[in-house]
């Protein structure tokens, strides 16, 4: 039987507010345990939550970016359950009336293929603290620094049909929230977390199969692997005569498998009800318009503009607009280069991204700045250096040896473009290799490369390759 996979994602995005969603405590990551938890976060008796407007602003910003409906009135509810890292015994979350509903997001699946994924809703809620199980001699430590950090939970429609689509959607949301500057998207620190609802059904069947929810998918790599694994598990189960049960499964990246959470952990009746400590959130048209004014150019617009304005391929534009910082880097490079978009794109997507990946750096941490790269490209364009020499220049810049002009001067890498000088070298090479010359002239065309090599060797690679080709061709043919 042929199977179709159905996937929906729930993405938890930590919002980049200065203070928590319902208290004045700071949200910065990495402070010593429990130093960023005030009486409200600790749920001391008598304390009350006060909504942080910045969190609402960010949620609205997201809503506008995905063409969603921003609710004029949304309501915070209490989700009741006991857990040590949940100080109040309930999580404040939006339930029946979320702040954002009915959005869409266009996801690129290949060069010329894209798909629209529906966004069911996005709602505001508070994060819980963390339980620390190590170093406490069999006891559990509780760190409530994270408790009360604002989260935007973005729930998709079950619109994805493969793990690759799910990963592409997740990446796109990640790109978007960083463009909007509503989250740092840092997955190692837990700022961006994903759960996947996965089911399979025979192709052509209209109704959905029973789904399993996979929790803890905190990297783009894991999400594909975990979903693919889950798809195989479900198909094997059904084909073996079994049935999928609705349950929550945890992805274990070390074992590369999903396994069910204990049933106790999923048997909660959360007893949602509107939080009487908070008034409904009323959002005016004016507020929405204000937020709309702060929307930056979004990834899709930027991608389109890069194709149109710089003549890049959709692929190149896609790579360059994957983050706002990279796109900015490209544009700054292109500008300093004197307008050579194609070359700038090649260098940014090629040499630069390669080096950044190799050293695990973010573009904002690049030792080669956009101005340095642009300056180097200008020297390629004006024939001071060849593309080949430029690689040496780039490496030197990366190693902190100064900008392109400094490197070129220090290493004497200026390209030889003097025709007379090149002719002289060629003449010498031809004299020194009479046998090869004879062979070439008798039809061994392949020896052309040999002569190019000898000329470049003689000039320490500085001869302009184009000129070498042209002159060599003339001279060899006699």
């Amino acid at each position, binding site marked *: 039987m042929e199977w179709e996979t159905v996937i929906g994602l729930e993405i938890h995005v930590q919002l980049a507010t200065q203070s928590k969603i319902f208290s004045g405590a700071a949200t910065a990551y990495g402070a010593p345990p429990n130093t960023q938890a005030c*009486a409200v976060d600790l*749920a001391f008796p008598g304390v009350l*939550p*006060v909504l942080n407007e910045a969190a609402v602003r960010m949620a609205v910003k997201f809503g506008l970016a995905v063409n969603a409906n921003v609710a004029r009135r949304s309501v915070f509810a209490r989700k009741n359950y*006991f857990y040590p890292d949940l100080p*109040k015994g*309930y999580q404040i979350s939006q339930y029946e009336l979320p702040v954002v509903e009915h959005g869409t997001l266009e996801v690129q699946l290949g060069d010329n293929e894209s798909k629209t994924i529906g966004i069911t809703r996005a709602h505001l809620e508070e994060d819980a603290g963390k339980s620390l199980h190590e170093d406490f001699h069999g006891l559990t430590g509780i760190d409530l620094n994270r408790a009360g950090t604002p989260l935007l939970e973005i729930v998709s429609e079950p619109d994805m049909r493969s793990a690759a689509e799910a990963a592409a959607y997740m990446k796109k949301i990640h790109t978007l929230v960083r463009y909007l500057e509503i989250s740092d998207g840092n997955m190692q620190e837990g700022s961006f977390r994903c759960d996947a609802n996965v089911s399979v059904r025979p192709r052509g069947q209209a109704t959905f199969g029973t789904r399993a929810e996979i929790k803890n998918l905190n990297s783009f790599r894991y999400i594909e692997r975990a979903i693919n694994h889950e798809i195989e598990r479900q198909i094997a189960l059904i084909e073996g005569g079994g049935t999928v049960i609705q349950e929550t499964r945890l992805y274990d990246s070390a074992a590369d498998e999903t396994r069910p959470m204990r049933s106790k952990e999923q048997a909660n009746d959360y*007893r949602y009800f509107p939080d*009487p400590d908070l*008034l409904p959130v009323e959002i005016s048209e004016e507020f929405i318009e204000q937020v709309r004014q702060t929307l930056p150019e979004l990834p899709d617009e930027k991608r389109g503009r890069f194709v149109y304005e710089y003549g890049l391929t959709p692929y190149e534009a896609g790579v360059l607009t994957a983050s706002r910082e990279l796109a900015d880097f490209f544009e700054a490079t292109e500008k300093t280069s004197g307008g050579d978009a194609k070359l700038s794109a090649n260098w940014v997507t090629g040499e630069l991204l390669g080096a950044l990946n190799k050293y695990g750096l973010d573009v904002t941490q690049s030792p080669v700045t956009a101005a340095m790269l642009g300056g180097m490209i200008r020297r390629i364009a004006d024939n001071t250096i060849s593309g080949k020499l430029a690689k040496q220049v780039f490496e030197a810049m990366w190693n902190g040896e100064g900008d392109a002009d400094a490197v070129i001067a220090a290493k004497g890498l200026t390209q030889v473009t003097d025709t007379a000088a090149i002719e002289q070298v060629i003449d010498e090479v031809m004299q020194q290799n009479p046998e090869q010359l004879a062979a070439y002239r008798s039809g061994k065309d392949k020896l052309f490369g040999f002569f190019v090599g000898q000329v470049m060797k003689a000039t320490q690679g500085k001869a302009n390759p184009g000129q070498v080709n042209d002159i060599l061709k003339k001279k060899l043919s006699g």
Partner: protein
Amino acid sequence: MHNKSIVELSQALRAGKFSSVELTRHLLARIRRLDGRLNSFVTVTDERALAQARAADQRLAKGSAGPLTGIPVAQKDIFCTAGIRTSCGSRMLDNFIAPYDATTVEKFNAAGAVLLGKTNMDEFAMGSSNETSFYGPVRNPWDLAAVPGGSSGGSAAAVAARFAPGATGTDTGGSIRQPAALCGITGIKPTYGRVSRYGMIAFASSLDQGGVMTRSAEDAAVMLGVMAGYDPRDSTSVDRPVPDYTKTLAEPLQGLKIGLPREYFGDGLDSGVAGVIDAALREYRKLGAEVVDISLPNSALAVPVYYVIAPAECSSNLSRFDGVRFGHRCDKPRDLEDLYKRSRGEGFGAEVKRRIMIGTYVLSAGYYDAYYLKAQKIRRLMSQDFSDAFRKVDVIMGPASPTVAFNIGEKTDDPVTMYLSDIYTIAVNLAGLPGMSIPAGFCASRPVGLQIIGNYFDEARLLNIAHRYQQVTDWHTRAPAEFGE
């Protein structure tokens, strides 16, 4: 000294007739000598009180005193006080010292009031007789066999017994008005949102409201003026200026329209109490008021609606008492579940557990619509009943409680009968309206309270109406025999 009102004491302090330290010493001595009979205080803060009194005397000397400077008051033990235990009447918080002051406490401190101590109360404010307290029942100063009412029973008894000229209370379903009535004092629960709930330990957040308990309406006006006001730390507090409640106390009542809800005078109302209320209404007619019959058709649903909504909210509010961060923790928990079960099982008393269970049930999947949602709908209807009534009348009057104080132990085995003692006060909380109880006479030697209900933010009007009555009657000045001299 102890029979003087806040207004009189304040004048005497300014005139230098005695100092705040002397006054405070006098009241502390009374508490030490007499509170063994009542059990109205859980904690008496002698040293701190005297330190505050000394500071107040300096302020008085400098001439920068306000109307509460140097005046000793008691705080219900539901308001968090930095550095002083806040027990909420529960074993759960027997060891709890808050690291912060409730907004209300801050305001009294800033006004220069002297904190005598923390008053006894029903556990987590759940009760109508002050018998659910972990610290034992409070006795009624008028008759030591009787309850003082609840949940602010300690505050009511302390004010009636002349231990403090004023005290704070909280009122979720009548917890200020009913004990004020049963102890023969004046109590006002303001409009929901008028007084900050920050630092006031929550029972049912949508109903809880802090207020004051004094002997006279005039004193209540002074205290409420200090306590009321917007607080950015409480999202449900209302940003609206606080009038000077003392300014309008003497306004004439000519033409005042008083509505009598016929539902408040039916079966279940003690005939003696009804007689006292009738007499009070005659006084109001003499003062120029007009009394008209009105109807609050959904009154009979107040108690059942309340006992769905209040427990629902409390079941969630009390989840934070889990033995993890503060409060009672069981000895040597085996695991997490054991920690929760035993800490909560040992820390909470029977009435609190009953309400947590009711609340958990009405919010459960499959029951939510039938109970919680339905109750919220009826709640809106009840608010509508009041709005309709206030189109016809200025205020509503009736009994604060269907009976006078009952005896200790009389209703403890019958929660439903106990719940019915708040039948006239609960609807006011459900609608969020301001309500008052003032002493209106006696029945079988126990005090009877007249309830006055106003429209939203009509506290000044209520205090004015109460004050005018107190100008022509002396019920509010009567002291229980054992505690008068």
